[in-house]
């Protein structure tokens, strides 16, 4: 037993000496930490692109990961309200409590879209602070990268210069990529889409896409047959170029609607790993734009 305890202590110490242990809720934040910290961070990602960030459970493996974390990087804006507070409390890790430097919520640093004016659950599972799917605007990524670098430097001051250097390098490459994407985006302006959930609002806002409806009647509530029929009727008069969904969304209602409208159903990667080529942040936007360009008439 003594030896076991010693081994635990040792593993704890070595983890702290070698690299920052980072627990990222979503793959996009894992990828961003990789860009900004490189080998100075040991990253665990809670979700995959195939898991709904609203619906995750605080499973034992995640409690074990948060227990060891020096920094938690999540979206916030209540996206993870069902499981993150629970994980943090169950882990017994004081370094990542809300309000400590080890607790970083990306959505705190960007302007949210779709902030509800009426807070009432009859509007569905709404988020009081606004739409939390902030990462699909590359300008938000730049802002968050800056704030996250400050946080990395605060937690690991001896590598602060490294983080700053990596940030400058990242922002330069990122801004270059944004410039080329925005040239391509000219061709996508006004493209009418119907997403399953409001997961692509920031992307649509950035690219000037026209979100004419969502498959869900209310956020977080599976669409009923009646709702789908009335939606179909409405869309028949003003059809979108495609029905769009995330890799984790239930494909049944979107498939049904796309077939009836005789329009393609497009699965956008949404996050890292949502498409086999979407292996990092650059590729995520690259793939997303390429897929959307395929919709052009």
């Amino acid at each position, binding site marked *: 037993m003594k030896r076991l305890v010693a081994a*635990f202590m040792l*593993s*704890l110490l070595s*983890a702290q000496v070698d690299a920052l242990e980072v627990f990222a809720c979503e793959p996009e934040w894992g990828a961003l930490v990789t860009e900004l910290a490189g080998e100075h961070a040991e990253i665990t990602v809670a979700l*995959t692109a*195939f*898991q*709904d960030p609203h*619906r*995750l*459970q*605080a*499973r*034992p*493996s995640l*409690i*074990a990961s948060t*227990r*060891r974390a020096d920094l938690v990087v999540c979206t916030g804006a*209540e996206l993870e*309200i*069902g*499981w993150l*507070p*629970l994980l943090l*409390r*169950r*882990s*017994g*890790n*004081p370094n990542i*409590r*809300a*309000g400590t430097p080890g607790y970083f919520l990306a959505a*705190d*640093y*960007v*302007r*949210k879209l779709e*902030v509800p004016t009426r807070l009432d*659950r009859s509007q*569905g*599972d709404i988020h009081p602070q606004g739409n939390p799917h902030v990462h699909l605007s590359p300008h938000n990524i730049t*802002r968050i990268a800056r704030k996250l670098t400050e946080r990395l430097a605060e937690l690991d001051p001896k590598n602060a210069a490294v983080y700053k250097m990596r940030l400058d390098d990242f922002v330069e490459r990122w801004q270059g990529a944004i410039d080329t994407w925005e040239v391509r985006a000219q061709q996508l302006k006004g493209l009418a889409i119907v997403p399953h959930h409001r997961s692509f609002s920031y992307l649509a806002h950035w690219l000037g896409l026209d979100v004419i409806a969502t498959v869900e009647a209310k956020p*977080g*509530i*599976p669409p009923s047959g009646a709702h789908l029929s009335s939606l179909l009727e409405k869309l028949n008069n003003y059809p979108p170029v495609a029905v769009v969904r995330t890799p*984790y*969304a*239930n494909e*049944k209602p979107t498939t049904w609607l796309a077939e009836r409208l005789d329009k393609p159903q497009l699965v956008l990667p949404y996050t890292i790993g949502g498409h086999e080529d979407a292996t990092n942040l650059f590729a995520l936007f690259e793939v997303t734009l390429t897929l959307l360009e395929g919709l052009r008439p």
Partner: protein
Amino acid sequence: MNHLRKCYVTALCWVGMLHGNFALGATTDPIADLRQEVQELRRAYEARIDALEARIAVAELAATRARTSASEAVEIAEDTAIATTAGSAAANVFNPAIGVVLVARAADIDRRWETIPGFIPSGELGPGKSGFSLGESEVNLKANIDDLFFGNVTLALQDEDGETEIALEEAWFETTGLPAGITVRAGRQFSGLGYLNSFHRHTDDFIDRPLPYQAFLGGQYIADGAQVRWVAPTDLFLEFGAELDWGSGFPASGSDDVSPGAWSLFAHVGGDVGANHAWQAGVSYLSADVQDRGVEDEPGAAPAFTGDSDLIAFDFVWKWAPLGNPTRTNFKLQGEYFRREEKGVFDGIKVDNDQSGWYLQSVWQFMPSWRVGYRHDRAATTNGSIFTGTLLEDADDSPHRDSLMLDWSHSDFSRFRLQYVYDQVLPKSDSQLLLQYIMSVGAHGGHRF
């Protein structure tokens, strides 16, 4: 003036002469002449290109400066916008998170039981009454107390024969700032023993608790005391806990002296297998020093037990979801095994009882919103023949039930459930049908594993 012009002319002559000499040379080598001209041209162009490049560099610098200051301005504007929208100065911003759960049911039950054959009755047992009944409506308040403590209170409102009872179901605080994965909790709390015990009942997959929970823990073991938990810093989830219970409730009924009436130890281990599977298993031990534990509400009237009670419990739960995404379909298999030894005196007779119970249940979400489940639960005693004819007479066939349930959830916050129970707790079987609703208002509950 004339003199000056002369000078010019002379100079021109000189130039002309030189040029003539040069031209003379060129006739001897025209390629060198051409090369010379090309070089001069190049020199001229290079000078112009340098000048242009310098102008471009200046322009670029100006552009970067403009972009930097523009993005800085945007940054500042965004920061201000975020700051002004984030804050709220209302007096109620520090109110705790409030969650209210409304539960009620309608039931068709022919053979109601309140004790399980062979077991000393404790807690609230049985399928309850027929007809419509409001169950426990729950009010939960929770919030951080300060930077070191977190507090939680749950009140249960229950209508008992026309009178509304308020029960303090939970009232505890726990630490949030202790180092090394340690959490200490004190107050009235759901014990960490077993799997199901620490869950609120409205999160259960069936309307009532399984038989071993009813037989051994009175439905739910609520401890008044302190708990220490430690999560190991390992890849595998490892949690160890210990509790001291000073309370006078079940299972240490009546032991109200200074020493704790009960203590328990528990350990949980869990992890993932691939992307589709997650599991957790545990073992728990509960030791109680029992004083006069008898039928509730009938002091003196009913026989009571005094002695030592030792319970060991094993639990496991396994969950499956395609790619770990439970949105469309998912499956859950869960089971627990309890074994208890009670040594002491019951109704003046020396006893050494050995009791056991288990349940196994599975719930399958076959499409969004819809789930179906099956549960088998059982509890058995070996009290011996000396109790024949008394409350503790062993049943011929150990009490057991088979339950089927179907539930529909419109959202995370509303659920309707239909449950059919083939009840064989009593020697004569009973078919029961129950309908329940569970409505959650307010703060978003946690998705516990």
